[in-house]
């Protein structure tokens, strides 16, 4: 029998396929952060005065804050003056009019990553998908803009939205995650460079999946993108996000903010496949992924659902949350997090029940291998007036190897007796009996492990959009690559 330890080792030694660097001329700010840098970013984007003031306010607030230390992660703190806050591929001044104007090297990059920037069928025969590609600090291309516009959907880089729909941006920016929300959100508010803006007007069902693909390329930079999604009454949108970065020995910072707003009867599905470079087997290099994601169900019967597959990043620090303000609103969180080698992840969600009869579901699956450490940190809060609120939480951890760790820190705060909450958590390794069962039916040990891991994650993969379910499955397989044959 191939030893279990071997499989674990192979699992831990998965390869990172997106680690190449694109050699492209870029326009990068020198490292450092001060008000002049913020003014320069704002000037680059030709932003209105109110936005500059908003950024400066955030920056001044940020100066008074200190980096949080409560997460169960261990890392060398970032020197915020040693990174550059803006890097963009040099291109024609007015930005690409069509794909033909986009630097072929960029197109090649995205092709290599399997992201279709040409408006072609994604996975032949399957529904089309609109992509906004963000390269370092700027959005380089957005596909299907025209088709979406016909449907009334606005999908564009946030920097363009600031120019074209300043009122909408002004109304919603920072309304879910205020500038001073936390250390990284404040930093992001001050220096955010690009990201996607989505607006689905009343009664519109977005005709295709929207997707943003984030790529860090330049050295010594941080990526600070900001995504804002608004679904008006009765609107529906499904949004996907993917991320990769080159393999480097230094740690790069990614501090994003995502804000979702759902009005009456609106529904937003937000899925992430996060595959930032995780660092090598000794924990050198990798991305620090410090992200603030929050959705607000403002309207009655609105629904926000977060799905995430976290396989990358040296350190992940991320809590996609739902504020359930509207009566009968629904929040969901489905997560699979895989940490191997020296990766550390502290992730989870917050469900804040404010409205009546609000429901939330949390399914979190963690897989920890090698010397990795992983924590689920969640909060379910039932406010005084949240009559009939309901929550179900399940967080399971699977451990592969005797050096890894898995922790659970669920906070439950209830101030209303009509609430009904259930929380369950288990931690174990792959059962010897399960392995034995599969093997005696002729499966090799690695296939058996693969199958069991997939089964463990099934609850979450099932709710992923089809395209991403394929990618997620592939990512899991990459994790196990090398153990077959």
């Amino acid at each position, binding site marked *: 029998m191939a030893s279990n330890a071997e499989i674990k080792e192979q699992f831990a030694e998965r390869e990172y396929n997106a680690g190449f660097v694109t050699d492209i001329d870029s326009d990068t700010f020198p490292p450092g952060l001060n008000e002049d840098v913020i003014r320069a970013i704002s000037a680059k984007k030709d932003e209105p005065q109110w936005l500059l003031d908003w950024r400066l306010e955030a920056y001044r607030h940020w100066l008074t804050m200190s980096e949080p230390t*409560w997460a169960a992660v261990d890392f060398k703190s970032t020197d915020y003056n040693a990174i550059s806050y803006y890097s963009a591929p040099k291109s024609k001044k007015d930005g690409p009019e069509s794909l033909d104007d986009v630097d072929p090297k960029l197109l090649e990059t995205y092709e290599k990553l399997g992201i279709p920037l040409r408006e072609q069928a994604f996975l032949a025969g399957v529904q089309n998908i609109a992509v906004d590609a963000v390269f370092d600090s700027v959005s380089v291309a957005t596909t299907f803009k025209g088709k979406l516009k016909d449907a009334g959907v606005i999908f564009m880089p946030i920097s363009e939205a600031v120019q074209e729909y300043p009122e909408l941006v002004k109304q919603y920016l920072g309304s879910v995650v205020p500038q001073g929300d936390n250390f990284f959100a404040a930093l992001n508010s001050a220096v955010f460079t690009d990201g996607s803006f989505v607006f689905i007007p009343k009664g519109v069902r977005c005709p295709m999946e929207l997707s943003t693909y984030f790529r860090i390329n330049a050295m010594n930079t941080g990526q600070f993108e900001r995504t804002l999604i608004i679904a008006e009454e009765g609107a529906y949108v499904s949004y996907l996000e993917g991320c990769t970065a080159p393999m480097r020995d230094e740690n790069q910072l990614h501090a994003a903010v995502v804000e979702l707003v759902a009005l009456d009867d609106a529904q937003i599905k937000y899925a992430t496949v996060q595959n930032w470079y995780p660092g090598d087997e000794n924990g050198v290099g990798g991305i620090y992924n410090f992200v603030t994601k929050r959705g607000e169900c403002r309207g009655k019967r609105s629904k926000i659902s977060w799905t995430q597959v976290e396989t990358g990043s040296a350190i992940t620090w991320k809590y996609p949350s739902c504020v359930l303000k509207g009566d009968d609103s629904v929040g969901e969180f489905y997560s699979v997090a895989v940490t191997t080698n020296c990766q550390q992840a502290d992730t989870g969600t917050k469900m804040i029940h404010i409205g009546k009869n609000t429901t939330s579901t949390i399914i979190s699956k963690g897989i920890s291998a090698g010397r990795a450490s992983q924590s689920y940190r969640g909060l379910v809060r*039932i406010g005084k007036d949240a009559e009939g609120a309901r929550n179900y939480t399940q967080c399971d*951890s699977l*451990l*592969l*190897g*005797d*050096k*890894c*760790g*898995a*922790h*659970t*820190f*669920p*906070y*439950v*705060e*209830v*101030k*209303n*007796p*009509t*609430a*009904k*909450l*259930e*929380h*369950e*958590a*288990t*931690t*174990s*390794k792959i059962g010897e009996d399960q392995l034995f069962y599969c093997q005696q039916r002729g499966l090799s040990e690695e296939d058996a492990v693969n199958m069991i891991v997939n089964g463990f994650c099934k609850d979450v993969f099932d709710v992923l959009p089809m395209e991403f379910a394929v990618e997620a499955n592939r990512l899991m397989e990459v994790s196990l690559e090398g153990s077959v044959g």
Partner: protein
Amino acid sequence: MNVATQRQHAKTLFAQAGLPTKRNEHWKYTDVSHLSDMAQTQSTAQTIQTPTTTLGIQNLDAYVLVFNNGAFVEALSSLPQGVDITSVASLLAEENHKLTDLFTLSGEEPLFNGFLALNAANAADGAAICIKANTKLDKPLYIKHISNQNITLRHGIYFEAFAEAEIIEHYLGVDDNAGLSNVSTNFILGTGAQCKHYRLQQEGSKQSHIGRVEVKQYQDSNYQMHAVELGGALTRADIVVNLAEQGASCSLNGLYVLAGRQHVDHHTRIDHTAPHCTSHENYRTVLDGRSHGVFNGKVVVHEGAIKTDSAQSNGNLLLSKHAQIDTKPELEIYNDDVKCAHGATVGQLDDKQLFYLRSRGISEESAQELLTFAFADAVLASMRNEVVRRYVEQAAFAKLPHGEELEELLA
């Protein structure tokens, strides 16, 4: 080292730590700012004159130790054979007593805080008990505390190899005086020792209670705790168990029955530091009025603690619109060969169950009482001592609005 040096050391630790505030993660839900003065004031022991024999559990055949406002009352106590009981006061005088270990404090203990330092520094008295190897106590040891002012007590109970005993720790109040009980009980369980520990808290309505139970378990020892929280205004208890050697096992059972503006906070922490250890935890809370319950249960499985089996369950029943519960069952695991699970629920009584009982002719109030009782009884059922269990059931009934009816119903 002698006890006096230990106390001096504890004073230094307190000076460094101060009292916890709500900014401290472990004290987030429990505000103790109003206890600061009481914590640092030593009342001169005033003996309570009320006839203390009628208080507490009656018809209990047990060895008794009575502490009246923190002072040991020998006349009311009866001591067993095969057990050494020394008062802390007399330990102070002695050098290198083996029980000194029970009084050390490093400041590195899990859930260490200013109250604990004050406790070690100021404890006026307490029982230092040693149960000799292979001794099995024929009757429980009932430690009865009656207090209505600020008291600081520190007990240490040492079980030598294969010793067995049942310890009933009971905190009783007599009137509405406001005071603070700062009490701690340390256990060391030698190889194969077995300890059943009942910890009943029924202090006066204005009394605050800061307690700590610390247990260190050696090979194959077994520790069972039943904590029942009924009285007091504000109660905080830290239960810290270290499964230090192979084969040790523990089970922690807790029940809060709260009403009015009562506040109870239990933080439990179980460290699995050795292989093949088992821990079980079952906490239930019944909250009425404007009461506030807090539960934090943490299980840490250290590297190398293989074949750990740990299960934790926490159920919370809210009976009133203004009651509040904050619960946090935590797992910290550094090892793959483990089986750990925890579960927590919050809810009110099930409408369907109420309907079932009512359709069988039981009044709505009685049906509610019955279901509430059944919920709480899941914890009480594990109490092996019938007399204690009966006493707790009655005391808990008395706190529910239609307790007498229920008594009849179940009689």
